[in-house]
């Protein structure tokens, strides 16, 4: 089995940096960070610069920030859920917003899970470690994400 690949859309370079570091610390080798939702769509469609199917295989998990230029996280999620190939791909929303509207809209659009970005690098490493456990199990179920720190369940609380 090939190593799982996580595709992460994040426009904040700091957050991208922290995530790369957290994944490294957690021991997940394959994290590809792109700058926004449009890039995710390009990747999934095999458009340049993601045209090589060997270096750009289908992702095991997609992580999306909500607030991004060009194509927001929720718009990207809607596109993925409308695509016949990626309809089943696990998509996790990772954002600093705990607004109930964002949470409910994300789940309505088909998000697998909704995470609040943790404050501090150490906390993010804990998130990455929990994600690693899920990725390594080979089978990703929605319920697994409930155990990840910062996960906001479906009936979102304030």
């Amino acid at each position: 089995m090939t190593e799982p690949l996580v595709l992460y859309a994040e426009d904040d370079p700091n957050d991208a940096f922290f995530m790369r570091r957290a994944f490294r610390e957690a021991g997940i080798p394959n994290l590809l960070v792109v700058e926004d939702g449009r890039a995710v769509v390009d990747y999934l469609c095999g458009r340049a610069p993601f045209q090589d199917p060997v270096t750009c295989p289908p992702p095991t998990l997609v992580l999306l920030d909500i607030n991004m230029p060009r194509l927001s996280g929720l718009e990207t999620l809607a596109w993925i859920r409308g695509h016949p190939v990626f309809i089943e791909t696990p998509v996790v929303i990772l954002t600093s917003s705990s607004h109930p509207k964002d949470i409910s809209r994300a789940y309505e659009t088909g998000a697998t899970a909704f995470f609040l970005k943790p404050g501090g690098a150490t906390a993010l490493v804990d998130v990455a470690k929990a994600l690693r456990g899920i990725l390594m199990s080979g089978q990703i179920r929605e319920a697994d994400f409930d155990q990840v720190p910062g996960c906001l369940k479906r009936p979102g609380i304030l």
Partner: protein
Amino acid sequence: MVTELKTAEKIDPTTAEFQRALSHGGDSRYVLRLYLTGSTRRSIQSVNSIKTLCERYLRGRYDLEVIDLYQQPERADAAQIFAAPTLVKELPLPLGRLVGDLTDSHRVLIALKVNPEAEDALNAIRKGEVDGLLIAGPEGRQVFTLHGTQEPYRLLIEQMSEGALTLSEAGFILYANQPMADLLQMPLERLIGAEFRAFVAATDQPALAELIGKAWDGGSRGELSFRVADGSSVPLRLGLSRLSLGAEETLVSVVATNLTEARKKEAELRQLHAVLEQRVLERTADLAAARLSALKLMEEAIDARQASETANQALKLEITERIRAEAAVGESEERFHAIADNIPQLAWMADGEGHFSWFNRAWFTYTGTTLKDNLGDGWKAVYHPDYVQGASAKLEHSLRDGLDWEDTFPLRGQDGQYRWFLSRMNGIRDESGKVVRFFGTNTDVTALREAQTRLAEALDIIARRAEELEKTVAERTGKLRETIGELEAFSYSISHDMRAPLRAMQSFADILIQECSDQLSEDGKEYIRRIATAAERMDALIRDLLVYSRVVRADLPLDDVDLSALLRGIVEDYPQFNAAGADISIIHPLPHVRGNASSLTQCLSNLVGNAVKFVAPGVRPTVRIWAEVRGQRVFLFVKDNGIGIDPQLHEKIFTIFYRNSRDYEGTGIGLAIVYRAVQRMGGEVSVVSEPGKGSTFQLELAKAPRA
């Protein structure tokens, strides 16, 4: 005396024979034919002899036909008769015949297979000629002596129409009369000597035994069903009594009356009674209905009487009025004029033809005219020129046709100014209904009209103002919506854009300590920790402010909220409560309340969080949560063993940014959120606390309607 049953040896075979006769021969019917030839001496002797024998032994159960072969020779062939006299026994089978001397009774009886002794015994018993019977019972043979002194008794019961029998001590029937045999549908011969109890069903035997037992003590009465030959049962009323016949002999005498008819009569009677009762019920219902309608009629009558009284009263009043009116008219025209002169309205009169004849003083005063000025068409001069044509045309039309009239138009005053008048006129009729005079008034309505105009104007102004106000409200609402929208966008951007740099500060501080600590002095490390703490605090403030602004501003749809489930979820979902080693106990079940689930979650997690947080160092936080329902309100209590709050500060703690202690982490927003959220759900929050004695927070909320 024919049969003597003195000793066991002697009477034994006879008795057996007797009993056999009773049980076998006794109940069959005999059909006999006697064939003769003319009226010879022998023929007459034969007929007499046979008749005597039959009467003696077969009474009631034989048919004897005497056939004279001279008259009916063909019968001889049919019956194969070759000599006369011949007696033929056709029934019971087998056929028997006897030719020759029929006067020898022994010979005849043998031919007829009649046991003369058994028949004689029965007759003897009946006649009281028997002194004793030997009867074979289950306990062997028993001798029953029948004393001669019984005879009067026998004679008596022979005459009775009721059934009667006598019973031995062992319950055997010693004697029975024919009606008894008829009742039990059994030949008398068989009845005598039978066990009485054999005629009642096993279930009735105790009752019979009791009756007989009592009879031995003197007497008893009762009713019992008896089984008879055809399988049916006959209800009998029994009267039993002890019968002493001399010193040595005591019997029980039983008299039985058939109750079948009585029962039938009783049933009929019952049925009749039921019918009668039904009739009575129906009749009662009829009566009740009749009573009701009678009451109603009475009420109607009372109503009618009242109505007629009222009508009478009205009539009386009318008559009085009329008399008074006529009197008044006849009395004094002048008096009427005097009254009319003193009213404030303008008034006038016209005769039956519509000619104006009189005006009151007010008219002259107002118009400044004289009577002469107004006569003919003169009155028209004071009508406003714009109205005179229309108003006077209508008035003249009414005068001509004798109609009532009403109009509103201006009249000129003596000062030349016009004022508005409401003018009315009525015709005054004589007895035949003809109008004999018209009476009219003009009432000044100028002030009223002005007031009405002003009112209309005022209403108009109000309507315009309301319209303007609505427009303003709509504009302001729009602006407010815009502002709210901006605020939403603002808080949204706070949550994203402002928190991102804070997160970066925290995270880089983390990384610095983790990765570069060997290049930092202790002071440097401390500074970095302070940067991280400050950033964290700022993040917490922003987070709480966002929640607060949402609680203050957002829609809070109210629903049925299960407090039990909500609190269980809070305690399970917030790991910090467990991390503090807190002992949190919830006294279930908690009621359902009307509230907003997410706001309540926020409130209760804040309260529980405070309860766990604000404890003295080294004290294990202990939190107890329970609820009470009082009427339609629910009171939820969160009690802790924390540091407590000075009563003077109880109001302050709910204001935003107020912090009771700098020794504990906090933004000073948590209780403000609770306060506003509970307020917006139509509830109240309060606290009972003293320093060092823990705190109890109380949330008062509405009970869920369905609960």
